[in-house]
């Protein structure tokens, strides 16, 4: 926890002139993070992929290609200067589709991780602060969710017809619907980890003096929870969200692969692989590229999460 680390670096003026100037807490965290080599490499890979995703329209303009334009005369072209990874079953440039797919997959991972972390944080704060029946109910709900087989439940949720739940036609027929839907349903099932984490922190902090002082001063519950307690939980939340975003990308790609996630012609790493099983006999490499990208992203996120954990909490290092 950041607040604990900062106490190590307090130096009084004139106490020891030979000491180097104190390091800021974030610099200390960065120094420890740097020691985790795999996390550094992972962060590099993630930054590279994120840059590609952000620059996708520029790359498309520069190459003069459209990632959704079908060209049936050029199906399954081998790798060439125009198509560095060849073309797919509809004659589209595979490299460009992978870059655009990354845009979707990374976006889903980032947005959903933020949503689940916020949802879990609010539930955890309420559960830990109020205790009693509220806590018991929320935690049983948590246990119930965890005991469900995740993927079958997600498949049922993904198959729900949006017009039958009363969504207006304009939204139900929009091409971005599958994107919003996947963000929503994964958030619905993935909030449990951060909820438990935040509940634990809240429980330990609520009897501490500084929280009691805030209560005595008449601070509102919202102020105590968000100004006094939440900052102490931020670093574990950040670690959990990083690790969760890896899982979210896995879930998104799996659902898209099954045809229940992101719908074509919008590309995602998962749905590029949808037809992979038919083409592995003729074009095995086409099935391998998107998988490698998913793998690289998720393992990088896991390593970065691991590195952040060590950096924030030196006691866990090497475990």
């Amino acid at each position, binding site marked *: 926890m950041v607040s604990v680390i900062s106490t190590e670096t307090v130096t009084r003026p004139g106490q020891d002139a030979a000491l180097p100037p104190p390091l800021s807490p974030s610099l200390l965290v960065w120094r420890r993070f740097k020691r985790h080599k795999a996390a550094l490499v992972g962060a590099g890979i993630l930054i590279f992929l994120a840059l590609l995703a952000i620059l996708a329209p520029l790359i498309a303009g520069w190459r003069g290609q459209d990632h959704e334009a079908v060209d049936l005369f050029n199906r399954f072209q081998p790798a060439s200067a125009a198509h560095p990874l060849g073309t797919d079953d509809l004659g589209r440039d595979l490299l460009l589709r992978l870059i655009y797919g990354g845009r979707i997959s990374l976006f889903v991972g980032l947005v959903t991780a933020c949503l689940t972390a916020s949802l879990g944080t609010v539930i955890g704060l309420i559960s830990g602060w109020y205790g009693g029946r509220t806590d018991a109910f929320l935690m049983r709900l948590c246990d*119930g969710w*965890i*005991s*469900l087989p995740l993927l*079958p439940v997600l498949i049922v949720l993904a198959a729900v017809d949006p017009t039958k739940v009363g969504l207006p036609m304009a939204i139900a027929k929009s091409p971005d619907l599958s994107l919003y839907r996947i963000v929503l349903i994964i958030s619905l099932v993935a909030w449990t980890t951060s909820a438990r984490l935040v509940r634990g922190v809240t429980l330990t902090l609520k009897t501490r003096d500084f929280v009691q002082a805030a209560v005595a001063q008449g601070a509102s519950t919202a102020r105590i929870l968000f100004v006094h307690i939440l900052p102490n939980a931020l670093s574990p939340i950040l670690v959990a969200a990083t690790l969760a975003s890896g899982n979210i990308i896995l879930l998104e790609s799996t659902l898209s*692969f099954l045809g229940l996630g992101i719908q074509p012609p919008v590309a995602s790493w998962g749905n590029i692989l949808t037809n992979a099983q038919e083409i592995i006999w003729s074009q095995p490499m086409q099935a*391998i590229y998107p*998988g490698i990208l998913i793998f690289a992203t998720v393992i990088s996120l896991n390593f970065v999460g691991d590195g952040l954990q060590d950096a924030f909490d030196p006691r866990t290092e090497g*475990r």
Partner: protein
Amino acid sequence: MTRFLSIRFLQASIVVLVMSFVVYGLIGLMPGDPIDIMLAGDPNMTAADAARLRAVYGLDRSILERYLDWLGGAINGDFGYSRQHHQPVLTIVLPRLLNTLYLMICAFLISVAVAIPAGVYAARHPRSLVDQAINLFCFAGISLPVFFLALLLIILFAVVLGVLPAGGMKTIGESSFGDRLRYLVLPVATLTIANIAQVTRYVRSGMIEVLREDYIRTARAKGANENRVVWRHALRNAMIPTVTIMALECGTLLSGALITETMFSYLGMGKLIFDSILANDFNVALIGLLFACSVTLVLNLIADLLYAALDPRISYR
């Protein structure tokens, strides 16, 4: 103990009951109306016929009425008919459940047999080369999408090497055990790899924690054999958190089984749930999902009981 068991059973039944209602409601929200599907198959049907059919199947009533009706039947062992297979639901679901259990038990046993020695070794030699290799493997295992792992295995063993079948349950006209086994290798391997990675991580971190404890030093100081210290004194305590995780992992295993079965055309529960949802075969999907939930809940209960068996300090009276 009896009290604990009965409370837990009551809780589990409530979860299954709530689940059945939620899933029943969700399935009603899926695209495709059973009557519309019938109409599409028969151009001679009129609107009046459709209304009559709706009344016959009770589809003109509210969702709550229909659910209570279904529940009444289900309690008496009548789960309805499959729209797709024209057979009672249980006749279809039970053999599939058995196939999935084979798959899961194989995967579970193999992953425990590999993960415990690997995790213990890594914990005994932290930061060694082998530990780092195991760590890398674990990270890779939890980061690899199951469907992609299945694809890689199919490409390697079925397409490139051509030594194992790419999918299915058995060669037609062959009924030997060896043949059946050949078809199990790839699905089990797919399911096992991610599971080994997960379990190894927990065994390792549990063991590292326990090996620092004072009673381990005491055991060594009084001259206990190192193997005895590690495998009896330490492992037993390290297993307490691990057992819970492994039971929860079975839920993951079930999710993995859905993908694995779909990829390898293995006729199990996961593929059945997936196919019946896509084919609007609601009765089968409903029972499939409820069975899947029940299996996970039972496993969680077993984990709690094992917990007490491993740690005498925990008792459920």
